[in-house]
């Protein structure tokens, strides 16, 4: 009998807690839905320690078809167009190409527009304080890494429209390394004309992803002995890099939120000590191990990149 009363009280408190305010996860799910369903026209900037990049971001839903346009406004530019499940990248250096996927890879981690439950393993979802961002009331949601090998990701979500207003990569010391801030957003009942124009254009055929066998490290030339928890291998191959035509053994890892790449290449001539470079949250770690060079690139802390690079050994 006592147990039964306890159970009732317990479940009652759960209900009360749930009704008080939406949980961090619920807010993120609402955001993912809003980003796919609303018609909006937004401008945002990505700020690193030095320099910033301005973007324009349009999204619309027209006759059940999603239309999205993201463009980098400075320099040579970069234009990414999405019509439903086809994302096309227009880059100045190369011919446009399409990928079969339902979200654009831009400055905002894609997983936030999708099913965030894949992040449960590596991150805690924490509700933060309220504030005012871009003239709107905002609620902070923090994705806190469960270990110190990754950065945290903080998001400020519009409490009215559930749209993203601000986001930042934050290191373990609580410093904001790379921030994304909306400067303007307007939500309209109909998609913008610029988006409807996309319907009359044709885009390159989407690349088929080879999904025959999952990549493994077993047969590869190199053994990567240490990896941060939660990261899995997505791709392993050998190919030439676009810019300088150098051959590299290539590995791509992801934990669902961020990715990093490992390149193993022939060493460059001359004495070059190993070291890290960083721009915003992106780290480039170059490790010179004598017979070969290992480079790690990704939005991970320099210390993590260093450990990965140094753990690469020739497979025997």
């Amino acid at each position, binding site marked *: 009998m006592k147990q039964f009363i306890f159970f009732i009280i317990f479940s009652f408190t759960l209900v009360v807690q749930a009704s008080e305010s939406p949980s961090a996860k619920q807010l993120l799910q609402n955001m993912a839905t809003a980003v796919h369903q609303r018609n909006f026209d937004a401008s945002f900037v990505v700020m690193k*320690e*030095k*320099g910033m990049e301005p973007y324009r971001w349009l999204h619309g839903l027209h006759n059940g078809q999603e239309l999205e346009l993201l463009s980098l406004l400075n*320099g*040579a*530019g970069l*234009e990414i167009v999405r019509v439903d499940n086809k*994302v096309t990248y*227009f*880059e*100045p*250096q190369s011919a*446009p190409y399409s*990928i*079969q*996927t339902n*979200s654009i*890879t831009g400055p905002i981690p894609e997983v936030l527009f999708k099913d965030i439950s*894949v992040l449960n393993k590596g991150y805690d979802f924490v509700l933060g304080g309220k504030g005012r961002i871009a003239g709107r009331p905002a609620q902070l949601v923090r994705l806190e890494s469960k270990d110190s090998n990754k950065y945290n990701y903080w998001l400020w979500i519009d409490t009215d429209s559930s749209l993203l207003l601000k986001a930042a990569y934050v290191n373990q010391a609580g410093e904001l390394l790379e921030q994304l801030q909306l400067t303007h957003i307007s939500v309209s009942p109909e998609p913008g004309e610029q988006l409807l*124009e996309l319907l*009359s*254009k*044709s*885009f390159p055929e989407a690349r088929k*992803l080879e*999904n025959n066998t*999952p990549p493994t490290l077993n047969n590869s030339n190199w053994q990567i002995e240490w990896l941060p928890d939660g990261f899995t291998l*997505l*791709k392993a191959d050998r190919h030439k*890099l*676009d*810019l*300088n035509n150098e051959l*590299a053994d*290539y590995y*791509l890892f*992801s934990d669902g939120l961020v*990715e*990093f*790449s490992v390149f193993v*290449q022939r060493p*460059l*001539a*001359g004495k*070059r000590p*190993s*070291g*890290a*470079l*960083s*721009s915003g949250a*992106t780290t*480039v770690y*170059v490790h010179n191990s004598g017979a070969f060079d290992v*480079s790690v*690139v*990704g939005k991970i802390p*320099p*210390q993590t990149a*260093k450990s990965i690079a140094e753990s690469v050994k020739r497979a025997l």
Partner: protein
Amino acid sequence: MTQANKAENKQTSTSEIFDGEFALTDATLSQLDDEKFSRYAMIGDAMRAKAGGDITIDITASITAALADEPCHDVKGIEEAKTNPKNSNVVSISNWKKPFSQIAIAASVALVAVLGVNTMQQSPVVSDDLPVLQSIPVAGGVAPVSFSSEGTALQSAQQGVRALQQQRIGALVLEHQRQSRMAQALHEVKSEQEQESKDPN
């Protein structure tokens, strides 16, 4: 004013009233021509360059009347003609992008340059046990020549290595960016496969 002018009497008096040469009495006002008066006023304003948006000529009635008789234009045809050049798909987009390609290569170099400079700025942030490429050829490129006490031959050799390594880092960053675009799709494929391999058991 003479007898001979009597026929133009009304016009003259309107003009005179307007110029203030005629005392305003009931008698003179009855001679005033309303339409002419407002026209004179407008001419005066225009000559004094007061015009701007002040002049209002109500022609809506006449336009409406004129429009009623106009044949309907083929609106569809006009719109098609307008959109046709844009309509031409991918090729036109890449053509439109072409002028930028020169800047693009410069931009990728700039990215590396920014990376290099950032390292210098950032060095205090990174923990002590982690070597930072500050004094190193990679970050190099930015280091003033006078900093080095080495011989010039060694210097130019190092600069060659620097250029190569800078180029390589630029290529790595770009490659990572490109490969990341595939990551989410690959991740989904992989988790689907894992699901499938679990399900039969």
